[in-house]
Structures are given as structure tokens and as C-alpha cells.
């Protein structure tokens, strides 16, 4: 009798436990997709935020700013990371489908860094020289003060916000056909690291194992390195905002996450990763 009571009690507990699990609220999920430049930063944000909010799951993926914006438009992501502002045509698509203009949240600043191999004699270039190099007008390091060796170009794929930003702000035209497109900034850094004649570009956070090229606004200007001070003072000529986009004004857990990113704790991590805070 006692045994059966015990069994009933255990079974009842089990039922309550199962029911409790079944009816306990499912963890809320936030999806973040977009800029490869922002993947590391975004993943770090997510990891730290999830530690203090165990009921929220944040899934971060890259793919490029264009891919992220497309995902935002077709409803596949809650937050889009973009290393460039949304284009007019992309805002039009949001208007057509969701009747909103999208919400733009600048969350960090970045100086697009020009990567050179450590063996390269060149250490500074002007915007015009970079334009000539990446458009294919200058093809030998000798033409910009280096050794007599051909220049090897590495860049991002056209879905990348960095690709678009660098094209609009530096190249100001088409990239040279010889420019090899690589999937991700880490791949660009890796390629430049291995190739003595290589040049590439990408986010400051990835610049390890390579030489950072100083950049001049024009031939007569002083050259500046992409660092916090120069970017804050507006001296480094290729700096940009990094954005988060949502379809509507963020609410609930998405708002909580974004508010935290813009807080002192979130912005501290921006500096730790190698970018520059907006607040």
C-alpha cells in the first residue's frame, strides 16, 4: 500500500514536472543577420547578453549587408547588421511590403582598414592611389613607391556592405576584374598575410598578422592610421558607421537587446573588438 502511494506520488510529480516543462514559456529567439564586418562584434554582444538573459536566444549569422537587408525585407531576420546605410531601393521594398521605412540604429564606428603584407615596402597611400590600384589603373607597386612587383588585389563579394562602401568612397567606379572576391574579411586578411604583393581592405577588427596601411585624403595631406583617436577626430578618411536595422520600432526583447548594445556595457565591447563606440 505504502509502495503504491509512493509510486502514485512519484508519478504525480513526474506529470507535474513534464507539464511544467511543456507549459513553461519557450525561450524567445532573436535572429540577427547581415554584415560580415560586424559578425564578431555581434556574436560577442549576443553571448554576453544571453548570459544575463537566459530566456532569450540570439542567433547571429553573417552573409553580408545586402544579404542581411534582403532577409529583413523578406521577414527572415529580426535585426539586420549593415556596414552601409540602406539604399533607396531597399527602403522602397520595405515600404511596399511592411509599410514602414525601417529603423536605423548606428551602433558602432569603423575605419575601413587597408591591409598590406608585412613585407611590403609601402606603408601609406592616398585615396586617389587606392582608387587607381583597386580600379586597375595602377598594377605595379613601383608606381606607388614600392618594389617592382605586380599588385595582387583582394576584396569582398558584392553582397558585402564593405565592398559597396569601399567602392563608393574610394574606388569611385568599377573594381578591376583582377580583384579577387573572398567570402569574409578574415579570408581577405589571410590572403594578404600569405602574399607579399597583396593588398586588401576590411574592418579594423580583423587586422592581425598584416601591416595596416596609413591613408591620406590626398597627396598633400598627412597619412593617418585607422585608430580610435583618428576616427573620433574625423582624421582617418575612410570611416563609417555600422548599423543595425529593424522593420519597425523595436519592442520587447529586441528593444532590450538593442538598448543594452547602446549602453555603456555594450559600447565597451565595441572597443574591445576593435571598433569605435558611438556613445
Amino acid at each position, binding site marked *: 500500500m505504502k509502495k503504491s502511494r509512493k509510486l502514485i506520488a512519484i508519478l504525480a510529480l513526474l506529470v507535474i514536472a513534464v507539464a511544467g516543462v511543456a507549459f513553461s514559456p519557450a525561450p524567445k529567439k532573436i535572429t540577427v543577420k547581415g554584415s560580415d564586418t560586424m559578425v564578431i562584434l555581434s556574436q560577442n554582444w549576443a553571448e554576453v547578453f544571453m548570459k544575463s538573459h537566459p530566456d532569450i536566444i540570439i542567433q547571429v549569422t553573417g552573409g553580408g549587408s545586402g544579404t542581411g537587408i534582403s532577409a529583413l*525585407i*523578406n*521577414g527572415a531576420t529580426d535585426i539586420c547588421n549593415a556596414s552601409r546605410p540602406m539604399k*533607396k531601393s531597399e527602403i522602397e521594398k520595405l*515600404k*511596399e*511590403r*511592411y*509599410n*514602414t*521605412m525601417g*529603423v536605423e540604429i548606428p551602433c558602432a564606428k569603423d575605419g575601413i582598414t587597408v591591409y598590406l603584407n608585412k613585407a611590403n615596402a609601402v606603408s601609406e597611400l592616398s585615396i586617389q592611389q587606392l582608387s587607381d590600384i583597386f580600379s586597375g589603373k595602377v598594377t605595379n607597386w613601383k608606381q606607388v613607391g614600392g618594389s617592382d612587383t605586380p599588385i595582387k588585389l583582394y576584396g569582398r563579394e558584392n553582397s558585402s556592405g564593405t565592398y559597396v562602401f569601399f567602392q563608393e568612397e574610394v574606388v569611385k*567606379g*568599377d573594381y578591376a576584374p583582377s580583384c579577387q572576391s573572398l567570402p569574409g574579411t578574415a579570408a581577405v586578411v589571410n590572403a594578404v598575410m600569405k602574399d607579399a604583393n597583396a593588398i586588401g581592405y576590411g574592418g579594423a577588427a580583423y587586422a592581425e598578422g598584416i601591416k595596416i596601411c596609413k591613408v591620406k585624403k590626398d597627396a598633400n595631406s598627412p597619412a593617418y592610421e585607422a585608430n580610435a583617436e583618428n576616427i573620433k577626430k574625423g582624421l582617418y578618411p575612410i570611416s563609417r558607421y555600422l548599423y543595425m536595422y529593424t*522593420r*519597425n*520600432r523595436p519592442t520587447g526583447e529586441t528593444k532590450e537587446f538593442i538598448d543594452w548594445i547602446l549602453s555603456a556595457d555594450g559600447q565597451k565591447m565595441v572597443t574591445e573588438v576593435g571598433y569605435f563606440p558611438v556613445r
Partner: protein
Amino acid sequence: MKKRGRINLVLVMLICVSTFMPGAEIFAQGKNDSIKEEVTTLRDKVTGVEERLAAAENSLEKMTKIKLSGYIQAQWQYFGNPAVYPNNYFSLRRVRLKIEYKPVEGVAFVLSPDFSPSGFVLKDAYVQLNDPWLKTFSLWAGQFNRPDYEVEYSSSKREVPERSMVVRALYPGERAIGAKLEVAPPTVPLKFQLAVFNGNDHLVIKDINGNDINPKNKDFDNYKDLMGRLTYNFKLGNFGGLDIGVNGYYGWMKSNSTTVLNSDYTLYKNVSVGQSVNRHWVGGEMQLYMDILGGMSIKAEYMMGINAYPGAVGSFSVQDPFHTTLVNDTLMMTNMITNTNQINPTIRRNFMGGYVYLIKNIGKRNQFAFRWDFYDPNTKLNGNQIGVVKYDNGSSDIKTTTTIDGSNPVIVLNETTKTVTTNTLKSGTSDLSYNTFTFAWNYFFTDNLRIQLAYEMPIAEKVGVDASGNSNLVKQYTVNDKTITNNYNKGFSQNVVTIRLQAKF
């Protein structure tokens, strides 16, 4: 013995080592050679793969220059109008394919056919040249959408099944053949479009016998039409945004008639065939986007001006059978030929029309839409004046000349009244104004698949009655041997229910 044995063992070992050492060297060298050979083979293979990959990339790059998109709209509709038979059916409203080819930066070719069962129609076919320097100007040539908000808003995105009545009346088929300059600076939220068109695109223009003289959309006069649209976008912070714009149409069409009437069916002026008649109108538009518990928008447009209907002139003869007449006890036989000179006057109608949309997104998948659209094709006549004799076109309508000839003896009847005037043209259904209320619910299964439920309620203005109390305007139709009378005094249902499934790629 032990010592000897040890020596022997050492000797054997030495012999073995001396015997096998060269073999091991040979073996190692052989292995190296085979590895080298293998590496060479692999290198060749990698080179081969690289070459194939380069060729594939080259082909793939060409393919990336071609973009294919399209959509299918399959629907079931129910019609409240008793004159429509069958009153419900399934149909394919649109079956579109859009092929976009960008051979080089800044150049695009666009081709968009529609494969609906009602007949193959070429929708878009144009070349677009974009300026690669300022990225501001683009030049279009071919057949493309006329510059107007609702026209340019794709049917695959529209929240209700069809465009508003005024837009359908002014821009039938939406597209026109011509050229367009578009100015859209990338850093300024402004867009200006200036287009020149043949102007007759997709209009139904009939000759005196009722034949369409504009079936192939080939221009039939020297007059070209100008159309412009200017829009500006304001950002309203986190609240949303406001787009405003103006548009105008400045066109001419040749009159196919010698008489031009005003909106109230009075004579405007007599012209010769080929002289131009005006088609001028202006419009204003706004789209307000608000982030209130999700996306919401109000979109509106208003247009007013003069639209011309080119009329027709012509003549035809009808030979009647023999007539017999008894004159002074003599039976006379005659041939009777009726020569008819018919003039269908050109009419320049003052019109106005517009629409207001209210669209609310509910979550990611649901969307509610309401539209009120209004169109008065003739602002100079109200309902009570439509179909009334006063608004007949008097004597300038159809003139019938009757002559009689034949073998002797010939008797000419009513020699002095050869001309018979009949009045057949009077204001009618084409002068009626409409208010249409449309309610729609869209559910998006995915971004590519949606279902739409829509209810459209067109309400025609009511006409007056004559002295006997009969409606001034009725239309009769025969449906399954039954006569259906649509009485425009009492009103009748023209409501339409649409359930549409749209797949887009």
C-alpha cells in the same frame, strides 16, 4: 663456442644490413619517385579543375547578368452584377515573366511578357541606360510604365486586386511606347521623370463601323504626349516618412471627327479631321508611412483635367429591296439606296478622379487594406442630366441622306426631304461617376506566396427619371434567354468577390 656463435650472429647481421641497405635506399627512392609522380598527377588534376572552374565561373558570370523574376495570380471570382455570366469562375489574372539582362554596368534590357490564357501580351520591353558617373540620370526607351504612383506600383505588390478606376481609364494597359528621362540623385530624396509617348497606347479608338483602329498600338497621328512626375521623400524620424508628388499629362490626339463637343454635349467647335484635341490633366499624390504598432500607410492621389475621345466620321450606302408604290392607278417599282453620312463627334470631357488607401500590417504575415476610389468621367453632367434629351447632341450627330432611283418610270419621293436627321448619341454610361470601396485581407505564407481575399463595391451615381417615371438610363442584356435589365435609377449590384493566390519568384 659461445664466442664463435656471437661472431656468427654479428656476421649474419652485417650481411643482412649490407644486403638490405641498398634495397632500402632503392625502396625509399622509388617511393619518392612515386610520390613525385602522384604530386605531378594531382597538380595536373588541380590545374585541370582550376581551368574548368575558371570556364564555369566565366559562364556563371554571364548568367549572373540575367535576372529572372515573375509571378502567377490564380483566382476565383464571384460577380454580383446579374448581367455577368457566368457569375463565378476561376481564372489566371496575371502570368508574368520578367527577364532583366545587364550586359555591362549601367545598361539594362528588360522584357516582360504575360502568358495569361486570354492571350499573350508583351508588357515591358525597354532599354535602360544609367549614367555611370553621377548615378543620377537614366534614359529609358521602349515600352514601359507611365510615370504615376499606382501605375508603377507592381500588381504583385498591390494590396487590392485591381488599380483604381480613374487610373485604369486614363492609363489603360499601364504601359506606353516612348522614351523617358529619369533624374534620381543618390543623395537627394527626389525623383523626376519626364516621358514622351505616342499617346494612343491601349486606347480603344473605333471607326464609324465600330472597328478598332488602334489594335496594334501603332501611332496614328503626329502628335506626341508629354508626361512628368516629381516626387520628394521626407523622413519623419522614428514615426515614418512622407512622400509627396505632382504629376501632369500634356497630350494631344487627332480628331477623327469634324465636330468637337463639350462635356455637356454642346458644340465646342467644328474642326477638320486630323486636327488636334487636347488631353491635359494634372495630379497630386502623397504616401504617408507610419510606425504605429507595426507598419501602416495612407496613400492618396487626385487627378483632374480634360480627356478627349476622338470620334469618327464615315459614310455607307444601303440598297433596299424593290419598293412598289401605287401612283395614279399605276404600280411603280423603284430601287431605293440610302446613303448615310455619319458623324460621331469627338468629345472633350472634363473629368476628376482619385483614390485613398489605408493599409495596416498586422504582424509579419497579415495585412488589411481598404481603398476608396472615385472617378467622374464627366464633371459637367450630374446623374439627373444623364440620358436626358437635352443633353443629346442635337443635329450634329448622324445625318442620313435618302435618295431613290431606278428604271423608268421613276418617282422621287420627298425630294425636298432627302436628309433625315436622327439623334442617337446622348450621354450615357460613359458619363456616370463611380465610387468604389474595396476591402482586402492579405495573408503572406512566405514572402513569395500570399493569399488575398477582396470585396469590391463599385457604386454608380443614380440617374433621374422621365415624365412617365421611367429611368433615363437602362441597359438590357440577354443572359440564358432571359432579359436582364440594369436600371441606373434604382441601382444594382456590381460587387465582386475575389480570392486570389499569388506565387512570386
